């Protein structure tokens, strides 16, 4: 009886994104398999001041949260604007992807993405300065994310000519 009418009832908020963790120990196929079963989410574009409590309150709206790991600057060991949220069940994580991704936390639109699973070390930013890579090259001023990007915009490498 039941054909699913795939053409119609898409669930695109659930799709895995293009991002693949370069440090993942395993091949692409293995990573994708984990992403498709995962109960863990990466959460990005947080303010540096957003607390674990705030993250917990928001993400509890889609189900019981098992664990939150706040992302840290590798050098300063302070929050650097991302975290991981792990649920007990996949279904709860799916609801977060559908209904919390793209909404606001601390007045900022946050972005969630499937994560293959937390491993020790992944809580640290991978930018050269210690924070996230995106903050290395960012040229706008974002007071909630340490102000300007790490690379000095007046640096000679950005200027053309000699």
């Amino acid at each position, binding site marked *: 009886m039941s054909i699913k009418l795939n053409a*119609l009832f898409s669930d695109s908020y659930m799709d895995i994104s293009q991002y693949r963790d370069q440090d993942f120990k395993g091949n692409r196929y293995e990573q994708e398999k984990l992403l498709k079963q995962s109960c863990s989410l990466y959460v990005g574009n947080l303010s540096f001041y957003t607390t674990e409590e705030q993250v917990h*309150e928001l993400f509890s709206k889609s189900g019981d949260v098992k664990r939150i790991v706040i992302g840290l600057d590798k050098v300063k060991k302070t929050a650097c604007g991302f975290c991981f949220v792990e649920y007990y069940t996949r279904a709860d994580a799916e609801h977060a992807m*559908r209904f919390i991704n793209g909404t606001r936390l601390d007045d900022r639109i946050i972005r969630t993405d499937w994560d293959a699973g937390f491993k020790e070390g992944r809580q640290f930013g991978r930018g050269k300065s210690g924070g996230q890579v995106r903050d290395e090259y960012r040229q706008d001023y974002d007071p909630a994310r340490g102000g300007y990007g790490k690379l000095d915009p007046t640096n000679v490498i950005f200027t053309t000519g000699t």
Partner: protein
Amino acid sequence: MSRRRHSDESDAGSQPHKRRRTSEPIEIEDRLESLICRVGEKSTSSLESNLEGLAGVLEADLPNYKSKILRILCAVARLLPEKLAVYTTLVGLLNARNYNFGGEFVEAMIRQLKETLKSNLYSEAVYLVRFLSDLVNCHVIAAPSMVAMFENFVSVTQEEDIPQVRSDWYVYVVLSSLPWVGKELYEKKDVEMDRLLNQIEGYLKRRQKTHVPMLQVWTAEKPHPQEEYLDCLWAQVQKLKKDRWQERHILRPYIAFDSVLCEALQHNLPPFTPPAHSDDAVYPMPHVVFRMFDYTDAPEGPVMPGSHSVERFVIEENLHCIIKSHWRERKTCAAQLLSYPGKNKIPLNYHIVEVIFGELFQLPSPPHIDVMYTALLIELCKLQPGSLPQVLAQATEMMYMRLDTMNTTCIDRLLNWFSHHLSNFQFRWSWDDWADCLTQDIEKPKPKFVKEVLDKCMRLSYHQRIVDIVPPSFSALIPADPVCSYKYGEEADSSLPGLAMATTVGNAIKNRASNEEILIVLKDVPNPNQDDDDDGGDGFNPLKIEVFLQTLLHLAAKSFSHSFSALAKFHEVLKTLTDSDEGKLHILRVLYEFWRNHPQMISVLVDKLIRTQIVDCAAVANWIFSPEMAHDFTRFYVWEILHSTIRKMNKHVQKIQKELDEAKVKLEKQHNKKASITDTNTSDMTKDDNLFFFQRFIMLLTEHLVRCETSGVDINTTWYKNCIERLQQIFLMHHVIIQQYMGTLENLLFTAELDHHILAVYQQFCALQL
């Protein structure tokens, strides 16, 4: 739809892909599915010409793809009820071109109807019957045979010893098809239809409506009565009949094709006997129609159809169907809702907001997860920034005004939604408009609501933010700054018992003492409850618990993670200290004392303590119902904790039951005979814990009722309303599990000797499934 090519598999690494179970999609079948599903969507051509074109294409494909086309059409009938008439028109056109196909389609639909009924898919069955009845309008099905099917449905009301919800459903399915087909059926068979409606009327008069109070969002009749769904539908059908079945809202593409369709030969529905009742059958629960707006609320533009107009029914049905189809994709859902056909003739934003809140407040539970509605409303605000936010604000204001009579469970959902919504809009709200709540007793619904909203807003932001967003006059309602209360701190009185020990323990923890070492240190803590030492001082010692836990929590107060780590690290110590029931209760008391300004922290730590089995559900129940917690009994966070506890308990038991069942199956397979494991009746486990909650409620409520009676005071205090609705809430939120041991509840607790106010709650709950 992706088509895997062989090269994908070779990239996959050592493990081959597991093929999907469904058959490999072929391009043409995909195209057919897409064409059929998308007909009627935004197009440069008219709907009629699109339908005409599609009918031609499908007719040409019938020789090769007939079964696929049949299956797709049956599926859209079942899954896309909001486009009902588009597809019945399509089927009508196909039938006109190919009579045999029409007959096969009808047969396939009947088969599908039987299957959905067998599988307890009652809402889908309603859509199928409605589809069949609209096929009468398309000259595919002969009217008399449809009337005959309806007669068979209504005769279910004559069956004996059936649950009321069964006959309810069969009556509902007939009534809810009449907006589409009433006119045609009356034109052809008015005598039979009158008889049918009389039978229905008689049934509706004699059926029980005990369940209604439990399902109403507001207890007040004004301004909008919360009507039982069958009563409302009956009134709507009566009015439609009075209007001689003239119905102008439903989009009927088949009218444009009348000349073609009336040439077609019709089919007779085969006689359809409703499947007999079985114990497996799970009929839909009754519901109450949610109304919050009427024609006076939309200030300009089109008028809102009246509550007993059939247009109102059709609009609400269609909007519910759209949400049901698209809830997973909030952008699509919002777009589909806003492009509702016929939107220019109705105040669509008001209908949408009403339907959404109707679902959010539905009792026992909303059709979809609560947070979906928040996300959907945000999307709608994005798509209609000039109009929808105003309607939403108006709705919020109206609901605030009517908090006094709103069901407590619905108030919970409202405050959750409102605080989350505000957090997406910089907490902008005209708080001064609600200044009336400041002069009321803080336990009254309005100030209580504002207080709980601000508490929730704070959880999503931080204390100073809340101070900044409300006018200074609201300061009494601002939540406490969520700091901890360490009793052994610097300001502690030097004579405080355990003070020195707290320092010792604190230093030990800082010096990375092990669990054993801590326990040794704690041995020296005197027991205020005992004069002589018992062996090793291992009995319940409240001072030990206080000294250790206060100090530990203080050291770990920085964040949730710090506290979780601390509890995990010293799990052994905690387990030892809480070996007894008193120990478990005391640890909760100490936790509360320490974090009483930070309810969110209490909530997450209680959760951890349960999950790590340091406390059990009975301890949580004891603690919540204890006299010390009486002042917080009506606070939202307490109920969050309680319901979370019950849920964990039920999940745990279900998990064990599942493991037991699987082990049994495994064992049977191995031994090739019936397993003779003694079947632990796991339902006893939940039963006992749940019984405990009910017991405590009954005690609490009875005390109140007796006290009021003896002092001649009215029982209906704010506290009483809150408490009795919390009892209802336990039933409603956990009804799936509770329904499994109704017999025990009735025999042990909800007996005839119980005060009738309390018993009424139980009886209303029973009525939901009768």
